[in-house]
């Protein structure tokens, strides 16, 4: 039986990808950011997940204004790193897990969540930067990855409550897959940042840390937070944090199981315009 063994949470700032790709990780500015992921790299080398279910958002890359799916599940067998305007990141092609993805589609849609299924799309920094942070710069990614793209670009985006619920449906789907698979679920984006207007550069260290506290200990309560609180307190792009609730909803404690074990908590300001947050929670 497949099982979700852990959840990982991380920001996916594009400048982090650029710093890695351009060999700047040792610079004073970047060193503290990457140091925050040293533990995670070591941890994941021991965990050896077979599949990462990676929740992220597309940043006007695969989805233009032609098509704006709220929840898009990548059911294809491979996904190429996108050219976002700077040329594609020099990272390996992402290989999916079409059998598990098809099973998740079947289960989650019958569980009343109306997903969009995507067999062909390129993946942008939202997906590849977390892979780089956790796996470094390998020739090939060491596991299969199922992309799950959430619309957080055009309002209204899905509510935290809806994200938390869909995470629970994803857990049920994974656990009903017959093959023995070690699956991790990652929630990415955030933390506080605003990339637009006179309020650009907003960072809210206190709010972010409160968000981390509640994600760990009170996710159901946190999921009730309205959009406006994210925007007002964590900036217009801080709304990406609703995606962390999908990963958190997939942990066993939400279904009455034991509490997760906190393996890593990290917070740093700034990476470019953004506060970087990172958590690792393991199911016991």
């Amino acid at each position: 039986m497949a099982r979700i063994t852990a959840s990982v949470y991380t920001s996916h700032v594009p400048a982090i990808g650029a710093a890695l790709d351009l060999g700047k990780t040792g610079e004073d500015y970047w060193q503290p950011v990457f140091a925050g992921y040293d533990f995670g790299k070591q941890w994941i080398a021991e965990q050896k997940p077979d599949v990462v279910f990676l929740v992220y958002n597309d940043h006007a890359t695969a989805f233009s204004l032609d098509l704006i799916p709220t929840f898009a599940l990548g059911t294809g067998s491979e996904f190429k790193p996108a050219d976002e305007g700077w040329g594609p990141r020099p990272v390996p092609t992402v290989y999916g897990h079409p059998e598990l993805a098809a099973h998740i589609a079947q289960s989650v849609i019958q569980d009343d969540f109306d997903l969009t299924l995507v067999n062909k799309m390129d993946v942008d920094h939202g997906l590849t930067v977390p892979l780089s942070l956790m796996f470094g710069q390998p020739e090939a990614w060491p596991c299969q990855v199922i992309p799950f793209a959430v619309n957080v670009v055009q309002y209204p985006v899905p509510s935290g409550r809806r994200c938390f619920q869909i995470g629970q449906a994803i857990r049920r789907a994974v656990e009903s897959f017959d093959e023995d698979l070690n699956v991790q679920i990652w929630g990415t984006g955030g933390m506080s940042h605003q990339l637009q207007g006179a309020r650009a550069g907003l960072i809210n260290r206190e709010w972010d840390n409160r968000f981390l506290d509640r994600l760990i200990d009170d996710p159901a309560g946190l999921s009730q937070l309205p959009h406006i609180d994210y925007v007002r307190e964590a900036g217009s792009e801080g709304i990406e944090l609703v995606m962390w609730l999908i990963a958190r909803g997939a942990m066993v404690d939400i279904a009455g199981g034991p509490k997760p074990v906190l393996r890593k908590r990290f917070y740093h300001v700034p990476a470019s315009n953004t506060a970087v947050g990172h958590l690792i929670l393991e199911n016991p």
Partner: protein
Amino acid sequence: MALDKPYQDIPGTIIFDAEQSRKGYWLNQFCMSLMSSENRARFKADERAYLDAWPMSEEQKQAVLARDLNWCMRTGGNIYFLAKIGATDGKSFQQMAGSMTGMTEDEYRAMMLAGGRSADGNRRLGEDGDAQPQHQPQGAAGKKGNA
């Protein structure tokens, strides 16, 4: 009946909702075209001619030519789409975001290194934070304006 939009009282912030998206449809789709290197080269060779091939408003074209991202956003642009113009110009997200504040690149970078912009005074219009309309533009540009 008008829809509830509780996000309209936040200073210095335009929320990209379905209404903005409708206004900015062609502007944003033009931006998407810059994701191919061939189109980036064609745009750089003759910006006006390239823009004229799109059914954008004249104001949207002027905003793009001026590289005024705040103006682009008022006409329906979204930052993730507009970022393709910045990428074409070789600008980072930090340079793009900073350009919308009136601060110089160094000033904006220093603000971020010092922990970023505080939410205090910037949660609602009518407060007195640095992102409020009465304090624009910020940085050296703002100081000149006040002198």
